[in-house]
């Protein structure tokens, strides 16, 4: 990979970050826009969770990940702390993989 490609990705990635931090976010001042900005993280992060759990590239797959994440979700519901949730999810998935 050329340095040009590395710097193009770095520049582009930073422009997106800066566009949100310095651009759009500053002008969204109406109550409705502020509420919308507040609802973006739950919408995006839940999409991220689902994608990381049941997709591989552009296809949907159900594997050991789903079991681990489901166990983690139950731990969240049972008010387990962050470190325990992460540990449970990883342990369930790793165990299933080792067993199959």
């Amino acid at each position, binding site marked *: 990979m050329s340095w040009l490609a590395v710097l193009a990705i770095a520049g582009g990635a930073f422009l997106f970050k800066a566009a949100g931090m310095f651009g759009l976010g500053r002008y969204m001042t109406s109550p409705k826009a502020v509420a919308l900005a507040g609802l973006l993280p739950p919408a*995006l992060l839940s999409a991220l969770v689902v994608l990381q759990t049941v997709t591989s590239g552009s296809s949907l797959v159900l594997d050991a990940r789903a079991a681990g994440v489901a166990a983690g979700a139950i731990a969240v519901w049972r008010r387990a702390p962050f470190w325990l949730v992460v540990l449970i999810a990883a342990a369930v998935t790793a165990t299933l993989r080792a067993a199959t």
Partner: protein
Amino acid sequence: MSRTSLVDLYARPMPNRELWSRSYVRDGVIMGFAVGIFAIGFGVLAVTNGLSVAQTMAMSLLVFTGASQFAAVGVLAAGGSPVTAVGSALLLAARNGLYGVTMSRYITGPLWKRTIAAQITIDESTALGVGQEDPRDVAGAFWAGGLSVFFFWNLGTLIGAVGGNAIGDPNALGLDAAFPAGFISLAAPALKHRPGRLAALSGAVIAVVAVPFTKPGVPILLAAFGAAIALSVAGAPPVTGGTSVVER
């Protein structure tokens, strides 16, 4: 020069809790560590696919978006052109702009500080920030998560790029399930109100439906419409934590 006595110290109202006692600092370090293990894999993958150590480090320091970095190297590994690599990487980087829209309401300070904040605006820092119950903790949690992940991501990349694969396949440890579960844990407070739950549900449904028809990175951008759906159906979220309405 007078010395502050212990009595004085305790009589004063504590401006800050002990740093480590803040749960978000603990969570940020744990998350950073997990990300660091993943980064070793990136370092190995990058150098085995023709990137120099300097280029690999430039990726982690300057691009600093895991999904984009893996995508770029993955395209090259599959024999794709540099243009395709850049395009795939940037599609996955675009969502950080949407996180920035939300986080810009909480990040204050001089320009240099907000520039650093922009660079560390990623999934992890945003999740830790918006997961705080108290709106006053959002910025602190964002910084804790972002800086911790930045440190461990770059340390892990260096270890992988220079030392090779020291830990084997991170997925054998179930690390790929640890991340989504961790995000659920961090962002759970956003599910305490109906608009937040509706945004999460619609975002997830939109993303899953879009996956077979779009390039990686696009489904998560389309999930942003979930926020608009939630707002029009359930109205504005209440004032609690990072998903709340905070006026500048």
